């Protein structure tokens, strides 16, 4: 049986490399044009060429989102763009336009076309129709239960991709124009203002129904499908997708590594994953989450417990404090780049592509002039830390929270 693909997002080259190094089988990125999450799309053509080569040399695939809902004016240059992507060896484009599938199949027949979740494919008949239209893979809508995911996957000839982690549209993706009306930012052309996460008063006629201390909101908790990975693998889902092209390198590293380990453990084991092991993975995922998470529609309905009231956007975690740039094993010194504030005598934890969570107490810290310092509080500053075990470039360091 072909092993399921772990598919990770990336905002820029550095994060795409982190995703590959931490265990993603494939990475999806957006170009400067033609892609949703326009704020996240920092890849020009040279970047796309470079990251495709990097992914391939590490045994991973590279997908490019070309998934805006095109207006005619947006189509200028699209053929040339697709030809360029094909010439770089990009493995697939992710699209939300059937017309674009036809163009891509004409000019780049070997490059796959994956149908974006923007098209809200929720049943096996839709998958069959899209197969007839030339699609190579379908990203399912996020409104299906696990039973439905299983049924669609087993009935479909095309490979099926399922979101397993990250932010959720509370409305059907691609069919929402709240942002257009509220801000004139086109939600389906990369400008979504996330108006669903705002707070609203609810009226019936002139009668105010909402409570001012807890206003109406459509904001959804994030998705965390760790409990369903085993079922998805067993029913033949082809790709497990992590959302988050706006997310940090720490988020990418932690979430990719955790799902990588979870998937590998499922394949290596002859018995179902235990509740204890699942709890371990959930705890690992929680270290990177900045919004409360749940299993969305996978367990059935999305009731009020799966919504956020009183929280507009995402919080920011400051647990991630540094990334390793170099390690001198002879002197047990790691050169690190500061990301967030930390101090001497704090307990820190390192994790990396080849290193599971390993803790140490930060006893000694120097700046590049070898002056001893007590507090690291300048982001991007390079410091030396005494780390009593071998670490590697791109390993990440975070604070350890001890229960009081």
């Amino acid at each position, binding site marked *: 049986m072909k092993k399921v693909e772990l598919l990770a997002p990336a905002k820029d080259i550095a994060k795409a490399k982190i995703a590959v190094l931490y265990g993603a089988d494939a990475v999806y990125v957006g170009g400067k044009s033609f892609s949703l999450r*326009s704020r996240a799309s920092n890849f020009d053509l040279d970047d796309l060429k470079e990251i495709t080569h990097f992914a391939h040399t590490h045994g991973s695939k590279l997908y490019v989102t070309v998934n805006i*809902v*095109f*207006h*005619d*004016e947006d*189509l200028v240059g699209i053929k040339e763009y697709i030809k360029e992507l094909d010439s770089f060896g990009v493995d697939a484009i992710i699209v*939300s*336009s*059937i*017309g674009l599938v*036809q*163009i891509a199949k004409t000019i780049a027949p070997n490059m796959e076309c994956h149908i974006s979740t923007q*098209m809200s494919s*929720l*049943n*096996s*008949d*839709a998958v069959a*129709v899209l197969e007839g239209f030339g699609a190579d893979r379908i990203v399912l809508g996020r*409104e*299906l*239960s696990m039973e*439905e995911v299983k*049924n669609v996957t087993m009935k479909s000839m095309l490979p099926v991709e399922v979101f397993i982690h990250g932010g959720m549209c*509370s*409305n*059907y993706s691609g*069919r*929402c*124009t*709240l942002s*257009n*009306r509220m*801000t*004139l*930012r*086109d939600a389906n*052309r*990369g*400008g979504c203002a996330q*108006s*669903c996460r*705002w707070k609203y*008063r*609810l*009226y*019936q006629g002139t009668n105010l*129904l*909402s409570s001012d201390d*807890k*206003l*109406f909101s*459509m904001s*959804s908790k994030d998705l965390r499908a760790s409990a369903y990975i085993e079922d998805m693998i067993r029913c033949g889902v082809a790709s497990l997708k992590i959302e988050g092209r706006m997310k940090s390198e720490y988020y990418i590293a932690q979430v990719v590594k955790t799902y990588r380990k979870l998937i590998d453990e499922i394949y290596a084991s002859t018995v179902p994953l235990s509740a204890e092991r699942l709890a371990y993975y959930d705890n690992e995922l929680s270290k990177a989450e900045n919004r409360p998470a749940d299993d969305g529609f996978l367990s059935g309905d*999305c*009731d*009020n417990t799966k*919504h956020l*009231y009183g929280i507009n956007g995402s919080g920011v975690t400051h647990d991630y404090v540094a990334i390793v740039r170099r390690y001198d094993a002879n002197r047990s010194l790691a050169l690190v780049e500061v990301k967030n504030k930390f101090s001497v005598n704090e307990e820190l934890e390192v994790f990396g592509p080849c290193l599971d969570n390993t803790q140490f107490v930060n006893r000694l810290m120097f700046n590049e002039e070898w002056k001893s310092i007590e507090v690291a509080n300048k982001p991007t500053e390079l410091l030396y830390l005494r780390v009593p075990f071998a670490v590697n470039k791109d390993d990440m360091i975070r604070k350890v929270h001890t229960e009081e």
Partner: protein
Amino acid sequence: MEIVACLSNKANLPRLKDYVGGVIFGSLFSLRFHYSLKDCREIVDYCHQNDLKAYIAVDALISENDKTMMYSYFEFVRSLDVDGIYFSDLGVINIARGYGIADRLIYEADTLMTNSLDAAFFIRMGIDVVAARELEIVELTNLLKKNSGHMDMQIFGHFRMSSSKRKFLTNYQKEIDKDFDVSAKDLRIVEESRYYELPIIEDEFGTRIYTDYIFCAYEELAKLRPYIRRGIVDDTFVNQDLFFDFLADLKKLDENNARYLRNSLLNKYSSAPLSEGYLYQKTVDKK
């Protein structure tokens, strides 16, 4: 252009027949209507006896577990002998093919029908399409002209802005533990720092939110009507006098009287939130 009215009330049929060429109705798997199967038959019979076209809306997105019921429902749809089927879920194409009625399909993709590539693709398959509502006048004109005679557009009414499987009103009711009718048709939400009153509806398919304004364009419509296959008028949330005045105007609308007719309507219903929608309000990929 054939004027097609969303049939919000079956009792309106005798009055509508003087103004429109067809009506859209629905039962199961419809986001707009919940007529009984018996009502559906009566609507089709009435339409065909009165030289009106009857279009059924099967415009909900269909989850895998609902497919069995959808197949059964299509047995019924086939038996109705409707003139067209508005659909939103691509799976409907497969189902309709199975029942030999794919030639009646009209793709209402909400936001997705924004370019001539996609429109042409479906039209080549023999499927008419409904233009997205978020197009500004130049791109709408070009799109309609390129696909003349095969594109529908909503020419009057509140636009649907979002559709969710989630039951936002029920969930909120539980969250604040307050008793109110989540199925009421006069609920509105207003963002805390804005003034737009957005109609919101919840039913078994989830929740939909509509624009605060009523789309109503006269001069533009007078120019575009030769290229529009069907012009859809929707009276949901709309004062009935206003709705029928607009329909009466449509009968006599041309490029010479368009401005006068519009100003007359605006004067008569000065408090109605009439708007030209996105025709002169380009939404862009602003960051």
